[in-house]
């Protein structure tokens, strides 16, 4: 314990946005220092079933996704915002914590704040906490993602004024109404960037009879993805395996088709927002009508999402600055405020 505290002197406080798609690390006083995909490549020595060792983590591992030989498999240790593979999450966190510490002299033992989905269960939260402790954290704090996102976006959360935030992440979308440093209402739907990718893969298979990979679907989403129709549709040419012929073929897909593919997923998010507005106390609802909804998370970068929600709800909707890093930045600021606010932002567990 004493030694851990000693090592703590040489460690920086970290805020980790442990996302399904990307893991971001914010270092106190330095800002975002790491933004890597939440992917781990595992090498199985002596064939399948043999002892496992980590071959690559993060961006390096993502390059291997879908391109690995028999003895290497790529794992996404998080699914729907929570841990799906405990050991791999621990290995990944260990790698990231080590990477953000320059010192090789002592094994770092930082104080870590991890952002968790608001709908995660006690068991899932405990798993995240233990995983971070196993990765060498001296102390672990958990904060709910919408709260971190709101702080990161710059919403004055301490005011007695309702503010609504919608965080569209990789695996989940979280909607929350915040007032006086607390969540008045929060809800989470298991729809996010990953579901958008799946929807595109399914759409292409159904309409073009072609199977495309996860990474290709992500590229389509980033380049021509739309949540609201544009006057001029954009087009993109991608390669996939034709299911009927069994050979690779190039297809051209346009942005309106992508919108059609995403309709179902977007409807789920809209339903969550409408449900939140329905269940918000009237005083806070009036505040939200005035101030609007702030979009954060990587999903907020989907073009026209703010327009769609604004049209559907009749509220002003806008995207926060640098929405991808809002949660990690907010977590970092919560960590900075920790001593002053006596852990006001933190979850009970």
């Amino acid at each position: 314990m004493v030694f851990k505290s000693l090592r703590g002197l040489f460690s920086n406080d970290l805020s980790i946005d442990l996302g399904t798609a990307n893991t971001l690390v914010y270092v106190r006083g330095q800002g975002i220092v790491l933004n890597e995909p939440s992917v781990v490549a595992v090498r199985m020595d002596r064939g399948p079933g043999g002892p496992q060792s980590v071959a690559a983590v993060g961006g390096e591992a993502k390059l291997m996704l879908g391109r690995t030989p028999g003895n290497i498999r790529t794992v996404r240790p998080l699914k729907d915002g929570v841990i799906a593979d405990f050991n791999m999450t621990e290995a990944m966190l260990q790698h990231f914590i080590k990477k953000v510490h320059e010192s090789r002299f002592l094994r770092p033992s930082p104080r870590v704040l991890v952002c968790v989905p608001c709908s995660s269960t006690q068991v899932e939260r405990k798993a995240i906490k233990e995983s971070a402790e196993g990765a060498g954290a001296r102390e672990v704090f958990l904060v709910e993602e919408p709260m971190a996102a709101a702080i990161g976006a710059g919403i004055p959360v301490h005011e007695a004024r309702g503010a609504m935030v919608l965080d569209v992440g990789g695996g989940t979308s979280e909607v929350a109404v915040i007032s006086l440093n607390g969540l008045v209402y929060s809800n989470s739907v298991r729809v996010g960037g990953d579901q958008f990718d799946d929807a595109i893969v399914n759409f292409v298979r159904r309409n073009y009879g072609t199977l495309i990979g996860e990474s290709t679907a992500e590229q389509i989403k980033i380049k021509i993805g739309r949540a609201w129709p544009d006057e001029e549709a954009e087009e993109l040419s991608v390669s996939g395996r034709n299911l009927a012929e069994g050979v690779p073929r190039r297809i051209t897909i346009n942005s309106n088709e992508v919108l059609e593919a995403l309709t179902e997923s977007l409807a789920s998010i809209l339903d969550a927002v409408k449900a939140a507005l329905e269940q918000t106390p009237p005083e806070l609802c009036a505040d939200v009508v005035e101030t609007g909804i702030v979009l954060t998370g990587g999903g907020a970068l989907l073009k026209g999402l703010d327009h769609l929600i604004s049209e559907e709800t009749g509220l002003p909707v806008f995207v926060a600055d640098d929405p991808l890093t809002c949660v990690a930045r907010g977590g970092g600021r919560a960590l900075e405020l920790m001593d002053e606010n006596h852990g006001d932002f933190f979850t009970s567990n």
Partner: protein
Amino acid sequence: MKQQHDLIPMTTGELLKQERSARKLSLADVARAINLDEKLLDEIESEQTTHLAPVYLKGYIRAYARYLQIGEDKIQALVSESGSHEPPIQNIFAAPPKSNPLDKWLRATSYVLASLLIGTLAWQFSHEAVRLSQDGSQLGKTTDNRQRIESTIKLDQAKGIRGTVNASIAPLGALHGGNAEGIDAAEQAWAAVSRPPVPDGESRLKLVVSADSWVEITDANGQQIEMDLLRGGSEKGYHGKPPFRILLGRASAVRLTIDGEPVDLTGYGADDIAQLTWPKNLQADNSGQDEN
């Protein structure tokens, strides 16, 4: 008038108002289109936005400008300009600590100083502890010697000898020497004070018997000074003319002193029986004479 406009750059609110007027749109039209309160739009145009958090203000300006179809680059400029008038987002919360190189040096120096201080204290403590332990052992020795002398005096008093031994008259060795030395010196001093002097040419013998032992002592004249079973715990003194022939039935239980000199009884016989002539050189002479 136009020249004046060119010289003074327009504020964000003025620019938005100008663009809206150029498109012949009312505030109500814009408010309906972008789902914003009309009053709020008026405040943005008149730059009375201090009550709005930067995140909201930027969002509103961006939405307004997009509706007016102002180019993205210009929108970005407007947003950053509006942000610069407002307190930065960080100011709502505690400012993050800046990593100052001076702080790093200060921290490193304080670590070094603290370790030096701890090291010095530890060294001083150990040094002091060693010194104290040495002092304690010397003090113990002195006390020990004092107790021995006192016990000797008490012993002599118990023997029924009147008078008091002044420690000052004992040889100095009694104060500093070991156990046997101290006691013997005290005894010599006592003997010198209390006993009558022996005639010239005679020696004084003393026997301290810790367990029952047969004792035979014959002097130079062949006179038997002692021939008896001495009981354990008894002490006896004799005088006679040397050389003495001595036989001790249980040598290990007897301490023999002649003229204050203790006699080593080891090597004078087997089975714990000591048979000796004192002084030793005379024993050899006598044995030589016997053989002759």
